[in-house]
Structure formats: C-alpha cells, structure tokens
C-alpha cells in the first residue's frame, strides 16, 4: 500500500464533505437573490437600455428577454450569449463567460446587471451613477488552486476556490477616463472556509483622472466624475492615451508595433466591505485587464476618445505607422481600407480579458453571515436599510488569505457580429 495514498484518502473525503456542507449552508442565505416572474416586475434603470444598431440582427425584445428580478423586485438585464440560441440572431456585444457553468451559479442565480447602481439612486438620490449595458463582463473559474500567505504553510495546503466575478468595465467610451465608480459583483467560495458574495460600486483609483497605462505612473486629469461625490478608492485604472499609441503603436520601419504596451488596460481594484464604524469585514483586490480596447484617451479628439482602428491607417510626418500585429492582420497589410472602430472586422473590440484574482481577506468571526451595506460597501449593518445591498460573508477570520491566479486569459469572447462598442 502506498502510504502517501493512505495519508491522502481521508482528507480528500473530508474535503468534499466540508465543501458540500458549506455550499448547502450558503444556499439558504443566498436564495432570495431572484424573485417572481420577470415580465411583471418594474424595470430597473439598467433594463431596456440596449437597442440594436444597423449591424445587429436581434430585436430589442429578444435582448430584453434575458432578464432577472433583483432582490428589490425590479427587472434587470443579465448575461446573454452574443448570439441568441433560439433564433440565431446577433446582439453585437458580449458579457463574458456563460455563468451557468460556474458552480456558484447554482448558489447565487443569474446576476442582475446594475443592481448596485440602482440602490445608489435610493441611498444618495442626488448623486446617481448609471452605466451602459455593454460593459457588464462576467468571468469565472471553478476549483482554482490558490496560494496562501505563509512560506511554511504554503506547501502543506491545497486551497481551492470557485470564483465568479462581474465588473462593469466599458473599454469603448470616455466613461472611465473620469469615472472611477463601477459595479462589481464578486463571488468566491473556498475549501478553507473563505466565502464572500459581494455586490458593490467599487471606486477604482481617483475620480476625475486615470493613470497612463504604458508608463504606469503618469496621472492624467480629465474632468469632473460622475457622480461628483465619487469616493477615492484604492487601486488604479491604467488606460492608454495618445502618447502610448504614438510611442508604441506607430513605429519606424525597423520594428513592429508593440500593441500590448500601446493599448493595454488594467483596472486594479482594491475593495473593502466595512462596518458602520469603518472596520473592515472583508477585502479583495482583483485586477481586470483588457489587451485590445476600442478606445484610448486623446485630449484633442472629439469626445476625448481616440480609436486604435483609425490609427491602423495613420502615418506620422516622420513615417511612423502601425506595423505588424493586429493592424496588419485586420487590414491585410494595408490592403483592406475603411474598417471603422465599430466594424466587426476591427480587432480592437475588448473581447479578450483576464482577471487576476489576487488576495482575499475576511475579519468576520464575530459578525453575522449577512450584512447590509450602502452601495459602496460601507456602513455595514446586520439589518437592511433604504438603498442597502445585501452581502454574504463567511463568519471567519481568514489566516491563510488565499491569493488567486489569473483566469480567463485563454478565452476570446468574440463571435459573429461582436464589435465595439462592447
């Protein structure tokens, strides 16, 4: 008999049992995330805001059929595929990975897009924050091997988590140049007892500005944020600007464009769920990265937005231009002209993304399993209040603070008709 198998057998069985029991316990707390028939529910502000463009073959009604009733009884849009399976029509945009494959989907149900934004209307009616439909992006992975916060303990543990996240990460418009507040839904359940189900408006970096992505240091002040009282958050939003494009995309004849440096976006969140007294209940800091956005910041451009696709056709006075890579592929080395930023043939459509799960910490051993916070994840109380958002957080103090790897980098969510804005 292999003694190491002997050593392994009982823990494996126990592990499955503990995960199962934890999951069943959470079901009871999460079960009210969906409600009655969506068709009779009043619409949330986020519902029904998408209309088909000239390239889309689906109707608004077909799109709005993908909806869910939120905890407040209102009807919200939710995940749908880029192509409607029953009819085969196309929506022209995508929301990331189909959540139904996540183990957590059975626990939490469909994600209502824009729920935290809606609650802000009640919590702070003078300072609303609503986001477009395209930007809601889902990513998830089951059974992710995690690292732990200890050199001694790390080789002894096999901490694994199921993670499902949804961030509103629009990479086609000027919104994120100034606005640091975006809806984040974060679900994580690990075999070490770490478990969080958080919906919040996360403040990513400072409002009114972003950080130039190609040097990771220059703060670009753009203008007033929405809402005007947007809180300053941890982390930062790395977004490309014209300087990045000119330096790394338009190049001389001796080298190829470095698209990953020129156009990469990284939204580095730092999130806290806090009690009324400001004490942290839980924190987590996933990073959301997009290698091929359909925009960059251009202070001289209309609406401050420059289009990478346009730059595929641009030539500087010194002869620098886009060479190789995505531009060459899309234009057939310059033979195909007239591809616009929102053309399905443009490779700059934000369909490739990855999420760095990073750290997860909980300090809730003496707290309740269910907290109600304001939409920013603050002022947590055990009982609901107007404009509050329900958060479910395991009653533990994490010691290992499991850190996750990058997920989603191998996926491409593009498909027939998918294009910017996406």
């Amino acid at each position, binding site marked *: 008999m*292999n003694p*190491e198998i002997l050593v392994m057998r009982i823990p494996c069985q126990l*592990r499955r049992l503990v995960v199962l029991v934890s999951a069943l316990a959470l079901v009871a707390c999460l079960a009210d995330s969906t409600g009655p028939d969506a068709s009779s529910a009043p619409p949330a502000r986020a519902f029904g805001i998408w209309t088909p463009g000239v390239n889309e073959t689906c109707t608004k009604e077909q799109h709005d059929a993908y909806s869910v009733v939120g905890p407040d009884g209102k009807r919200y849009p939710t995940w749908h595929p880029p192509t409607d399976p029953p009819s085969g029509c196309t929506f022209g945009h995508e929301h990331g990975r189909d959540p139904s494959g996540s183990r957590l989907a059975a626990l939490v149900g469909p994600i209502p897009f824009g729920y935290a934004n809606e609650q802000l209307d009640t919590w702070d009616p003078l300072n609303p924050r609503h986001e477009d439909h395209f930007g809601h992006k889902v990513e998830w992975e089951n059974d992710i091997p995690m690292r732990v916060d*200890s050199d001694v*303990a790390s080789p002894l543990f096999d901490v694994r988590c199921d993670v499902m996240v949804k961030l509103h990460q629009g990479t086609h418009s000027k919104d994120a140049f100034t606005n640091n507040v975006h809806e984040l839904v974060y679900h994580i359940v690990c075999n070490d007892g770490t478990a969080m189900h958080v919906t919040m408006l996360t403040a990513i970096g400072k409002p009114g500005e972003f950080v130039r992505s190609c040097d990771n240091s220059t703060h670009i002040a753009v203008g007033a944020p929405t809402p005007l009282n947007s809180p300053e958050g941890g982390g930062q939003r790395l977004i490309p600007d014209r300087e990045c494009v000119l330096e790394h995309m338009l190049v001389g004849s001796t080298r190829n464009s470095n698209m990953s440096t020129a156009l990469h976006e990284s939204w580095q969140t730092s999130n806290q769920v806090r009690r009324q007294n400001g004490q942290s209940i839980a924190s987590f800091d996933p990073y959301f990265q997009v290698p091929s956005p359909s925009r960059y910041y251009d202070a001289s451009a209309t609406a401050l937005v420059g289009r990478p696709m346009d730059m595929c056709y641009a030539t500087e006075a010194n002869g620098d231009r886009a060479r190789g890579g995505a531009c060459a592929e899309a234009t057939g080395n310059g033979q195909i002209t007239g591809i616009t930023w929102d053309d399905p043939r443009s490779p700059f459509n934000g369909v490739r993304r990855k999420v760095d799960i990073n750290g997860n910490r909980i300090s809730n051993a003496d707290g309740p399993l269910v907290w109600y916070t304001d939409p920013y994840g603050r002022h947590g109380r055990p009982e609901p209040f107007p404009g509050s958002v329900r958060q479910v957080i395991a009653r533990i103090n994490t010691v290992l603070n499991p850190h996750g790897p990058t997920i989603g980098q191998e996926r491409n969510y593009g498909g027939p008709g998918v294009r910017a804005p996406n």
Partner: protein
Amino acid sequence: MVIFRGLRAVRAGSPAIRHMRLATLLLAACATLATASVAVAQRPATARRLSTTIGVSKGAGALTCPFCSGEGKGGLAGVVGVELPFRTGLRFGLEGEWWLHSGGGSTRSVLAAVPVVHFYPAASGPLFFKLGLGVARFSASSDEEELRSTSLSGLVGVGYEFRLSSRSALIPYVSWLNGNRGTMRLNGALVTDLGGVSLLQYGLALSKR
C-alpha cells in the same frame, strides 16, 4: 533522510516505492510467522514485569485537513513506550511517537503521546497488534513562522517479537497514527478546527523487561 516524496512525485522504482514494498513485506512476514508462532515463541508467559521499548523507523508524516495537500514527507521516526501485562494476551502501555523532516527551509515534526493496548492473538505468541488513542501534534516551523495542529489521534499497529534473551526482544513493527478535528494555528492564529495529523512508520524496536 527523505524516504517518501510527495504523492505527485512518486514513481515506480523511486525510493518511496521501495520503502513501501519493504513495509508490505514486513507485514506479510509478520502474518506468516504468526501461524507458527505458538510453537516457536520464547516469550515467558509468566512475565509480568514492566517492559520498555525503543524503536527507530522510517516514516511518512503529513498534516491533514479539508484543504491540506496531505502530502506525506519521509523522515526519521521512532517510538518510545512502556507496557505492563494486564491479563493473558493483553498489555497496557503508554507510547510516545515522533517523526522529523527537514527541507525547503522548514522543519516538520510529529509528536504524540498515546495510551495503547497490545493484543496477542496467541497468548504466548510473538505477534501482537496494538491500538491506542491519544494526542498528536504536527508542527511545521521556520525562523519566522510556526504552524501547529493538535488533535485527538488513533493509533493502530502490528509487531513481531523475536526473542533475543529471556528479557529482551527485537520487534519489527508498523504503525499508523491518524488524528483529525484538531486545532490548527498559524503563528498563533486559528486556521481551522479540522486540523489533523497522519504518521505511518515502520522499523525496528528493542524491548526490555
């Protein structure tokens, strides 16, 4: 001394496999010899004195919990025990078991104190089985950190007494210590209440009475 590698690293022909075969052979030999044990046993049936046992072995120890890797690492192990005859074919005793592994910048160890019962299927035979229930602690430490898991643990084992004289015996033995639902702490902070330990060891012990 590393005997067992991690489960994922074990390959046919590796040292870990060789030692496992040795343990299997040892058990098989004990069982075979037991069939003829009554006739050849030299153990005085009337001996009712306290006996002491010291053993050194090779062992594989592991930390166990629902999210532990369960990876068994090889190392030097051993047992120290005292036993007293209770009635025919039964001896009560107290055993201390230990295991040590160093590597990768940390030291891992198991220490256990276990009251045991030795049961002799043939009252005057050399083969015995042992059962025990005690407390075991798994520890992993470096200069900066310490992880400990202390749990109620059960012990099962088998041994065969080769008489060297009327007062001494050489005992090949195999034992397995396993505990769970213990308190695991990392640098003093509670990690889980489902911590445990597992220690498999096989070796030779000297018993004197």
